[in-house]
C-alpha cells in the first residue's frame, strides 16, 4: 500500500498545446484523482463587447483561438444575424460551410500530429503537419491568411471563391487523400500505437451522458450527438448527415473517430462545391440590435458543440456576448477519465479531449 504523492503537471509541459495545470494525486504510478486548474490565459475578451461595436467584435471573436478561429467568427456572425433577424444569401452560407469543414480537416490533422507526438511517434507527427501545410496553403489562397482569416462578416462573407480556386480545392483535397489514408492506416493498425491507446482512459456510455460531454470525445463512447444533425443554416444543403460513432470508449476510439471525420469532412466539402449556387455573398446590415433582444446559437466546431449567446441593448455595442466552448464542457469528463490511469498515460488522455484552453478561458 503506497503513499499518495501530488505531482503538478503543466502549465509548461512539452506535450500540452495550451497551458493547463493538473494536480495529479498519485499512488505508486497510478493516478487516483486529478484536479484541473485553468486561468493562465484569461484575456477578458468577453468584456471587449463594451468597447467594440458588433461589426468590430468579429475580429476579436476570431482571435480567441488559433485553431478554432473560423468556427468562432462563423458562430458569432450567425448569432448576431439571428439577433437582428438578418437572412444571408445561400452562397454565403455554403461558402461558410466549405471553410468551416476545411477548418475541421485542418484541426483534426493537427490534432493527430499532436497525439502522435504525445506517445512519442515523432515521424508520424511530422508527416501529419506536412499534410497540414497543404491545407493552410488552400486557406491562404482563398482567404488571404493561414490561421486567422477575417473572411466572415455579419451579413455574409467578405470574399468569394472563384471557379478556378474551387477546382484547386478539389485537386488539393484529392491529392492529400492518398497520403492521408496511409497516415490513418498507421494510426489505426500499427502495433505500437495500439499498445498506447487501446483500453486507456475508458469512459462508458452512461458516464459520457452524465458528464454532459460534447464532440468527438463523446461520439467515441457511442453517444450519437452532433450539432450538424440539426441541419442549421448552411448544413441544410447537405443530402444526409450521419455522425461518426464508435462504441469502444477509450483513446483508440477517439483517435478513430477523428481520423474518420477528416474523410467525412472532405466529402462534405466536395458535395458543397458541387452544389454551390451563384449569387450575392453579403447583405448590407443597418441599424442596431434591439434593446433586450436575445439570441442563441450552436455550432459543431472541430472540438465539439459550441454555444453562443448574444443580447442587445439598443446601441451598437452588444450588452453581452458569450461563447461557451466545447473544452469547458469536457473538463469534467477529462477528470473522470484520468482517475485510475497510469502516470505515463496522462499525456494521451489529456490530449484526447483536444484541449483548447484559450477558448475555455477567453
Amino acid at each position, binding site marked *: 500500500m503506497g503513499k499518495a504523492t501530488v505531482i503538478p503537471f503543466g502549465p509548461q509541459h512539452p506535450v500540452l498545446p495550451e497551458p493547463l495545470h493538473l494536480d495529479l494525486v498519485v499512488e505508486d504510478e497510478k493516478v487516483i484523482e486529478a484536479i484541473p486548474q485553468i486561468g493562465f490565459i484569461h484575456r477578458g475578451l468577453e468584456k471587449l463587447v463594451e468597447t467594440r461595436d458588433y461589426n468590430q467584435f468579429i475580429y476579436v471573436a476570431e482571435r480567441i483561438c488559433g485553431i478554432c478561429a473560423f468556427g468562432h467568427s462563423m458562430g458569432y456572425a450567425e448569432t448576431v444575424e439571428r439577433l437582428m433577424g438578418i437572412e444571408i444569401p445561400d452562397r454565403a452560407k455554403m461558402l461558410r460551410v466549405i471553410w468551416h469543414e476545411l477548418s475541421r480537416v485542418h484541426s483534426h490533422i493537427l490534432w493527430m500530429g499532436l497525439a502522435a507526438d504525445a506517445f512519442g511517434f515523432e515521424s508520424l507527427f511530422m508527416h501529419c503537419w506536412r499534410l497540414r501545410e497543404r491545407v493552410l496553403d488552400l486557406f491562404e489562397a482563398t482567404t488571404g491568411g493561414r490561421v486567422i482569416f477575417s473572411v466572415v462578416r455579419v451579413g455574409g462573407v467578405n470574399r468569394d471563391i472563384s471557379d478556378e480556386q474551387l477546382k484547386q480545392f478539389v485537386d488539393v483535397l484529392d491529392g492529400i487523400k492518398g497520403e492521408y489514408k496511409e497516415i490513418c492506416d498507421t494510426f489505426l493498425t500499427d502495433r505500437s500505437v495500439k499498445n498506447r491507446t487501446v483500453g486507456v482512459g475508458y469512459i462508458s456510455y452512461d458516464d459520457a451522458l452524465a458528464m454532459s460531454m460534447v464532440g468527438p470525445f463523446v461520439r467515441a463512447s457511442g453517444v450519437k450527438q452532433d450539432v450538424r444533425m440539426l441541419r442549421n443554416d448552411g448544413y441544410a444543403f447537405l443530402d444526409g448527415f450521419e455522425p461518426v460513432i464508435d462504441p469502444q470508449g477509450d483513446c483508440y476510439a477517439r483517435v478513430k473517430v477523428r481520423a474518420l471525420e477528416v474523410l467525412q469532412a472532405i466529402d462534405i466539402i466536395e458535395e458543397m462545391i458541387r452544389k454551390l449556387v451563384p449569387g450575392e455573398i453579403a447583405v448590407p446590415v443597418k441599424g442596431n440590435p434591439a434593446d433586450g433582444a*436575445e439570441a442563441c446559437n450552436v455550432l459543431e466546431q472541430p472540438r465539439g458543440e459550441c454555444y453562443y449567446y448574444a443580447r442587445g441593448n439598443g446601441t451598437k455595442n452588444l450588452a453581452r456576448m458569450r461563447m461557451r466552448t466545447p473544452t469547458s464542457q469536457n473538463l469534467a469528463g477529462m477528470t473522470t477519465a484520468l482517475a485510475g490511469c497510469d502516470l505515463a498515460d496522462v499525456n494521451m488522455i489529456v490530449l484526447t479531449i483536444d484541449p483548447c484552453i484559450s477558448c475555455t478561458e477567453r
Partner: protein
Amino acid sequence: MALEAKFMEMGAGDILRCAQEHKAAGWRFVQLLCTNTDDGIDVQYSYMKDQLIENWTVKGVSKEDHLPSITGEFLAAFVFENESHDLFGVQIDNIAIDFGGRFYDLAMAEPMTVISPEQKAAREKAAKIAAAKAAKEQQAAAGAPAAGADADLEAKLAGMDPEKAAKVRAAMAAKAKKDVAGKAASADAELEAKLAGMDPEKAAKVRAAMEAKKARAAAQQETEGKGE
C-alpha cells in the same frame, strides 16, 4: 429540422428543481452564463434535447443571494459556477469542485461588473437619444401633422452617426428657419434637446452655426419686411 431556442424566466428557488426535472427527462446540460445588468445579475441555465434549447433565466441576482449548485446533477457545471463566482461575484453553495475564488485567480475582483467611465458615458448618451426620440414622438402625436414629418426625421437622426446627424440637423434647421416663426421656435427647442446629448465640442460648433444662421435669417426677414 433546425434549431429552436426558447427563453424563459424562473426564480432562484426553482434552480435545483429545474435541473432535476431536466436530468430525469434525459435533457443535456449546455451551459450557465451570467449577464451584468442595471438591476443585478441575470443567471441563465441552458438545457438541450434533440433540436430544442431551453434557456431559463433567473433575473436580478444580487451579490448577497446564495444560489444552489447543480453539480449534484450535472458535474460539468462546476467550471461555469466557479467562473461566475470569479467574474461576477455570484455566490453559489456546494459546488462539487470548489476553487473558492482561485479558479481564474484574477488581479481584479469581479471584473465583469465594473463599468468603465467611457462605457457609462456611451450608455447615458444612448439613453438621452432614446428619451429625446420618445419625447419627439409624443409631440408629433399631439401636435400638428406638419410636425409629424419632423418627428420621423428626428427619430432617424437619433440613430445616426453624430457628424452626419449634425449636418442633417443644420440643414433641417435652415429649412425650418424658412417656415413660420412658431415652427422655427419648436425646431430650435428640439435641436437644443438633441444638442444636450451630443459631444460638447460638436454641440458648441453646431450652436455657433445655428446662432449665425439665426442672425442672418433675422436680418434677412427685417430687410424683407422693410422692403415690403
